[in-house]
């Protein structure tokens, strides 16, 4: 698993990247009550706002970590946004995407690096 400075994680699965937010980020957001997911099939650029997470108090954006295409979104989050608090690095992934420029993955941290980053 790789981690971004925006507190996202990326996990490779069948040539695509599965993207979610970290346990640390979920704890900071507090109780998540609404997740607005992107449309499947759209092309995104790194740092595009692709997901909006609404906690009880505020809305936060999740950015596309790399250039690519959104291939699948986690529809279960629409019905059960609290999953983001319960299992942010497992069941509560947000979307899957292709990676058009693999070199963009090089800057991301590994788990140990991320733990140091948030310490």
């Amino acid at each position, binding site marked *: 698993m790789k981690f971004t400075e925006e507190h996202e994680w990326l996990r490779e699965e069948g040539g695509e990247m599965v993207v979610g937010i970290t346990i640390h980020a979920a704890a900071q957001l*507090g*109780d998540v*009550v*609404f997740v*607005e997911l992107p449309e499947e099939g759209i092309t995104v650029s790194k740092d595009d706002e692709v997901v*909006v997470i*609404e906690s*009880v*108090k505020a*809305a936060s954006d999740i950015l596309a970590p790399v250039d690519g295409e959104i291939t699948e979104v986690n529809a279960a989050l*629409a019905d059960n*946004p609290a999953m983001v608090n319960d299992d942010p690095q497992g069941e509560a992934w947000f979307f899957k995407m292709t990676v058009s420029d693999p070199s963009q993955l090089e800057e991301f941290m590994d788990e140990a690096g991320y733990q140091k980053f948030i310490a």
Partner: protein
Amino acid sequence: MTGSDTTPLHGLHLELGAKMIPFAGYDMPVQYRAGVMQEHLHTRAAAGLFDVSHMGQVRLSGPSWEAVAGAFETLVPMDVKGLADGRQRYGFFTSDAGGIEDDLMFARAGDDLMVVVNAACKAADIAHMRAGLPGEISVDALSDRALVALQGPRAQAVMAGLDARAAQMRFMDVAELEPGGLAVVASRSGYTGEDGYEISVPAAEAERLARLLLEHEDVMPVGLGARDSLRLEAGLCLYGHDIDATTDPVSAALTWAIQKVRRRGGDRAGGFPGADVIFERMDQGDGPRRVGLQPEGRAPMREGVQIFDSAEGGDPVGHVTSGGFGPTVGAPVAMGYVPHALSAPGTGLWGEVRGKRLPVNVTALPFVPANFKR
């Protein structure tokens, strides 16, 4: 605005793991470890303890109750003279333009009037009272006192366990109590829509009182986050958001707080700032109106969301002044202003969230029925 001031409970907040934020010049707990959702639901199910010491406690005293109450009636459109000893009332200061300068609670304690005002307005309110009241009325800021609120259906049992007299108090009663031997002044009120008490205590004793209340298994510390969602579900205005100097009591749907005796035709009609403007608005009955707004979907409509009367095009007809997720309702809830003609419950409107128009319905307030002990 900085968060440099602290309340007498600041150390306790940190010890309880509170997440602190700057609020009205104070460093205040927005939530504790349980989080906003749990704190909100616990308050509705049992009892929540809130530090509201940042609010201003002010004592007005003078040669007689008549003098004090009469003087205060020149600043507020409320029936002050008719207030019985040991009773409390909701009110607001008005401006010459008919706007709301701040909202407040006032209570009669013998010949004195005890006023609780919002933290962000307290310096201006004290100056306003000193300037507007005759010299024989002294205006004393009780800065050596803390204020905590115990709110929720278990509040009575908790307080009565510490002083049995607490159970005899009705909604809006004020009494001196001695929980755990501490001399406090408690009102049977709050700002969550729940039964409960607001307890004024000497600053030096505040932490002892808070710990005494928190010892009870039904009591959980609750921060400003849940206080906001609780008062929103209860349909109660937050000053600076739902009401301010640009909103008058008629558009704010607060005319219920203006007693008949102070209205046109009443024995002590008018005599407060902006009376003519406010009476005219009461007669006209048009203009914008504060309403409840219930979004149909799951997306919260927060403060600033523009309201439209059509799914596409046109200018906004209103806006959201408070909005978020209502944990007890289990759905997004909001309040805002819409034209009078669109203010009937059931009216279907649209709120624009991130560029998309989403359906929202005008709803009667409150979202959650009040649970006061009448």
